[in-house]
């Protein structure tokens, strides 16, 4: 299983904050996972196409082509605006 999390405006666009899924067959990096999620439909395709999104794997920001393995927690979010 992998844990997926979506935050802020992205969470609102997708209508979901987090979910657990089986690591899809043949997917072993972020581009693969993103493409797999985008096949869910129009809103996923456009929301995840936003190049300003950051991606964290296991709560560390990573490059958008990072590898993933079973058990990972993967989060997508817009640029941060705290403070």
């Amino acid at each position, binding site marked *: 299983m992998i844990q997926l*999390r979506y*935050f*802020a*405006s992205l*969470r609102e666009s997708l209508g979901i904050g987090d979910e657990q899924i089986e690591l899809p067959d043949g997917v072993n990096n972020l581009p693969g996972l993103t493409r797999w999620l985008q096949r869910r439909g129009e809103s996923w395709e456009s929301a995840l196409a936003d190049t300003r999104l950051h991606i*964290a794997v296991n*709560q*560390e*920001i990573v490059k958008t082509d990072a590898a993933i393995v079973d058990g990972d927690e993967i*989060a997508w*979010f*817009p*640029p*941060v*605006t*705290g*403070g």
Partner: protein
Amino acid sequence: MIRVQADDFNTGAELERLRRENNGQAGAMVSFTGLVRDLNEGDNITQLTLEHYPGMTEKALKKIEAQANEQWDLTATLIIHRVGPLTPNDNIVLVVAASAHRKQAFRACEFMIDTLKTNAPFWKKETLIEGDRWITPGNSNK
């Protein structure tokens, strides 16, 4: 020390605690308090909601604090950030650096709040009379 909380914090009580624990070591204590403004881009704000990424937020703040302590000679550091719904003039964030020397305390305090603003997973959503909008970097989150 870092804290992420929905409850308000008391800047004064925190600074007084740090002063008492200081025991004559530090000669300089610099604090930054971030408050909710009632106006952004000319629009009246009625509420500000802070969303965060529980778990990653704490890691990010601890890392920022550790980086500051590596880079400067500090006797104490503190980062408190609130989450959830806030109203104008509410406290949002408190960052404190104490040092034997004031320049070090200033540089460290400013580094921590600057880094927090770009690296810690918090997101602000403003509630205006016309509706809600997410703040994006650059639309006045200075």
